[in-house]
């Protein structure tokens, strides 16, 4: 997946706009409960852990590990010409905080379950799609 690819983009609304536009400043954000600190995804009006209604978008590190993945070969639409990696990643902040995403900047055959990755955004202004790439092993250049 080298050049830009065609994407069906999310329809923005009151509940999801913060998430899909968050990457403008390079930071991934999730809804988080101000009562108990639980990250809630996808966005909902209530914390399922403590039933608080007080939730607000909060930045996360963008670091994650690959929970599972698949290398897609099937041309579901005419624009698909190369294999690409779809993955479910788990954010380091919380065990059950997951995203479906693509793993980029690596050969499809180089992706494995458990692999450390970090977020990188693809600009579809105003939408910024959170993708993930292999993270440096030592974590020395990690931010924010």
């Amino acid at each position, binding site marked *: 997946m080298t050049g830009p690819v065609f994407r*069906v983009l999310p329809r923005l609304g009151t509940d999801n706009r913060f998430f899909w536009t968050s990457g403008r400043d390079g930071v991934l954000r999730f809804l988080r409960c101000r009562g108990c600190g639980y990250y809630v995804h*996808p966005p909902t009006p209530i914390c399922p852990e403590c039933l608080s209604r007080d939730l607000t978008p909060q930045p996360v590190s963008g670091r994650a590990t690959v929970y599972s*993945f698949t290398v897609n*070969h*099937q041309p*579901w639409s005419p624009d698909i010409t190369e294999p690409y990696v779809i993955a479910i990643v788990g954010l380091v902040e919380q065990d059950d905080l997951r995203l*479906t*995403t693509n793993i980029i900047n690596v050969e499809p055959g180089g992706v494995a*379950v458990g692999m450390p990755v970090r977020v990188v955004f693809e600009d579809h202004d105003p939408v910024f799609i959170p993708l993930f790439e292999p993270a440096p092993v030592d974590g020395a250049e990690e931010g924010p």
Partner: protein
Amino acid sequence: MTERFEHRVVVSGIGQSAVGRRLGRTGLDLTIDAALDAIADAGLTVADIDGLATYPGGGGGPAGFSGPGSPDVHDALRLRLNWHAGGIEGPAQISAVINACLAVGSGLARHVLVYRTVTESTAQGAGGRGGIGTGVPEIGGSQQWSIPFRAYSAACWLAMNAQRHFAEFGTTREQLAQIALTARRNAGSNPKAVYRDPMSLDDYLAARMITTPFGLYDCDVPVDGSTAVIVSTADYAPDAPRPVARVEAVGTALRGRPSWDQFDDLTTMGARDAAASMWERTDLRPADVDVAELYDGFSFLALCWLEALGFCGRGEGGPFIEGGSRIAVDGQVPLNTHGGQLSAGRLHGFGFLHEAMVQLRGDGGARQVPRPVEVAAVANGGGPIAGCMLLTRWR
């Protein structure tokens, strides 16, 4: 154990239309064939039918997916209904049958016609079947979390369940192949199966990759066809002309999150919960099951159901099916004796129920399980969508 609604109902009849590729007939036309077949099989007339249920109801989903809605069938047969329902939310395709059982068990109806119809092959032939979400300008709802990442098919979503299973338990494609190879072998004895030519492990491994670890033969085959069953009050059993099946227990639970990617354990899926709730409703145990008709929209789903239903332990599915002898027609757990959706065709859940009835009645001919079939397990669905049922021979 207290009395359960399941024991107030029976499956009294089954019917099926022609099944095939690009039949070029309407869904309603096929449904009428299946319905009349099932009504006659149950020893009833159209006038006896006072309930109607279907999955997923009319009009939704990709081309060819939904079949006719219940009002279309209701009106075509001029049914006089005391109860009717159609819908997609619930414990998988078999939820329509479970709803019918609930209606009959609670006295709302005496004889419910339940059907599932697909014309996906004809739709595909007309060029109407791209990936999910392709060709739309933007996407909302739950699919906004998958489609922007070009995960355009349940194949992609469920391949990640399989890949996680491979990573956690060392499951291999050679093991998974046995689901597909067993289905194909059984389909050879089913005249209505779509794919009946013998298939070898080499054929399986050489097929083109769809989305790892799923190759072409890990994916079911779209067909046209309709399957119908009649759920009747148990009082009717002595009058039925053909053997009826008792509904021993249904499995309806979904205790994890209702999400393809947020479900807590992708190696188990919703099947874990549905199966657990079924066993909570019966004194029968997995060892009592004589035939297992388990959803195989993708090969991995059948492996997952084998584990969920307790035929082997969690994560042990790969070694359990290795070599295929345990799941052969004469094995410990005869699996998908008609060829499953992988080889007999994607009748979307109801093909398994139909085959369970065939086996319980001893009507399987060349594919009949050699030992006496007293108990059949039927399971539908994948990912967070799961429902199951245990049927037993009434007489």
